[in-house]
């Protein structure tokens, strides 16, 4: 394994210039700015392109320094020369999702109609809209089909949407720690986060872009609540237990006495520097609306009917946000649709976050799947 970060290229492109893109909500969006990173080189036959779909609060800096935080990319364990997503072998594309805040059109951008930031005037977007935008990018890059579409969590939802809507344009699909619909529990957690943002007076009905106040506190609380759902109880306990933060005794106050509190506050505060509160509202909503079966008359197998895509699903035993049962539901549907599907449930106590961590079993499964699929595809 190399520790040298892969060469990356950051690009931005305006898509939908000639033809506006229809959204699920009925609105049309034109001149969509899409920012993306690429790693590796597209081969002559254009058969080695992999689309990486980022999670809810991820971005296109999958394996390069995030410009705001200066931190390494969120999937550096996965991407690089000789790694599972081998930049010597594949051409990787990772774009910021529609509604995002890292360069792809979202609520903080200027509405050409008003000359001001969209704020809540930004149209409601869905996972399918995100995927439509990525399909425009695929056209722009002149890639006939992805060798694979890969992603975890919300990224996994995009993978499933890709495989359902554009089966012929993805040779293989790796949905990780995800589901074909957002559960009531997940919608509930998202609603808590959104209400935290909207309860912050600095949110100002979403029109905070021209003021000197942004809803930092609300967004931080939203992040803190969400962060708990990414970890398992065991992982939280192992990491923090009831350990006290930089003190020997309880203070009998509301300071962060416990390490776990201090950790969550840190997570919350760091997040607000790199994420737009309105983007958070829109993207969480997009996830809530995701229900692949209901888009196909209530039948999930129908979503994958006739699919030639090769699937490899991965779930984690301690993930309670996207539990194994939800991956199994997808596997069941794929089997019913006679699709090519492999599935592994990885025993780990790391919770939902396991897909972002260096989880050897996940790397082995994905590595084996990609290598054998590459052979079938004839990629050396």
């Amino acid at each position: 394994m190399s520790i040298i970060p892969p060469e990356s290229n950051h690009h931005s492109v305006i898509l939908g210039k000639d033809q506006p893109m229809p959204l699920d909500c009925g609105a049309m969006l034109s001149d969509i700015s899409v920012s993306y990173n690429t790693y590796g080189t597209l081969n002559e036959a254009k058969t080695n392109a992999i689309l990486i779909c980022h999670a809810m609060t991820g971005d296109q800096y999958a394996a390069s320094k995030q410009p705001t935080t200066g931190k390494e990319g969120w999937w550096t364990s996965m991407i690089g020369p000789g790694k599972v997503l081998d930049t010597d072998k594949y051409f990787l594309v990772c774009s910021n999702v529609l509604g995002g805040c890292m360069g792809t059109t979202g609520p903080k951008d200027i509405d050409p109609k008003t000359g001001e930031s969209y704020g809540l005037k930004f149209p409601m977007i869905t996972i399918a809209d995100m995927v439509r935008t990525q399909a425009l990018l695929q056209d722009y890059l002149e890639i006939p089909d992805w060798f694979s579409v890969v992603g975890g969590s919300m990224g996994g939802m995009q993978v499933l949407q890709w495989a359902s809507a554009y089966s012929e344009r993805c040779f293989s699909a790796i949905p990780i720690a995800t589901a074909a619909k957002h559960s009531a529990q997940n919608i509930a957690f998202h609603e808590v986060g959104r209400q935290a943002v909207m309860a912050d007076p600095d949110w100002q009905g979403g029109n905070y872009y021209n003021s000197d106040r942004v809803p930092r506190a609300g967004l931080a609380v939203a992040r803190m609540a969400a962060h708990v759902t990414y970890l398992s109880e065991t992982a939280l306990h192992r990491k923090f237990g009831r350990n006290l933060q930089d003190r020997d005794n309880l203070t009998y106050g509301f300071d962060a006495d416990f390490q776990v509190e201090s950790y969550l506050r840190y997570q919350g505060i760091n997040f607000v520097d790199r994420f737009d509160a309105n983007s958070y509202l829109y993207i969480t909503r997009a996830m809530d609306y995701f229900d692949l079966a209901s888009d196909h008359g209530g039948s999930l197998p129908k979503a994958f009917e006739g699919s030639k895509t090769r699937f490899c699903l991965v779930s984690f035993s301690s993930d309670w946000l996207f539990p194994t049962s939800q991956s199994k539901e997808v596997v069941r549907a794929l089997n019913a649709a006679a699709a090519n599907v492999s599935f592994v449930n990885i025993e780990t106590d790391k919770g939902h976050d396991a897909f972002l961590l260096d989880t050897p079993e996940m790397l082995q499964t994905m590595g084996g799947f990609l290598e054998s699929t590459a052979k079938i595809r004839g990629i050396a």
Partner: protein
Amino acid sequence: MMIKTSRPRPQDIRVDFKLIAQMIKPGSRVLDVGCASGTLLSYLVETNNVDGRGIELSQTGVNECVAKGLSVIQGDADKDLIDYPDRGFDYAILSQTLQATHRPKEVIEQLLRVGKKAIVSFPNFAHWRCRAYLAFKGRMPVTSSLDYDWYETPNIHFCTLLDFTALCAELDIKIEKSVIIDANGRVLKTQSLGKRANFFGMQCVFQLSL
């Protein structure tokens, strides 16, 4: 299923696999339940050009299969067959796994629901060596092909050839084909599934339908 079972010696496995392969029409859709590291499934893909799928309990097994380009899901013969649609496969195979299932009867019924035909292979516990071992040593048989002590064997539901045929009769399952192999990996000449086969047969391979 994890096949830490009464694994026959390598030469016997090949006989077993060959016999299964001979039963399967080329180009069929096949589900191998308890496919371990995918040896049989790869063999069937190669020799019979089948459209193959597998279920395997152990993660290492699944990973090995996936690395071979096989489509295999992590699951349990006892619990997960229920998730497959009716008659989605031409053949559902249960090779050397029956004796390790918790509910063999239900598993066989499920095989014949998801597959138009089922192929089941298992070691015959009434083989004369097992009988002799029990008769003369008075201990649970531990042989080269059944090499576990009673307290740690994953093989919890051993049956004999006659037990199996009796169960098929009870469930109205048609035995379409059967091949019985002796201790030397040779196919028994006798075609009848009687006491003689039950005495000399070490491995049994059955093709079943409803």
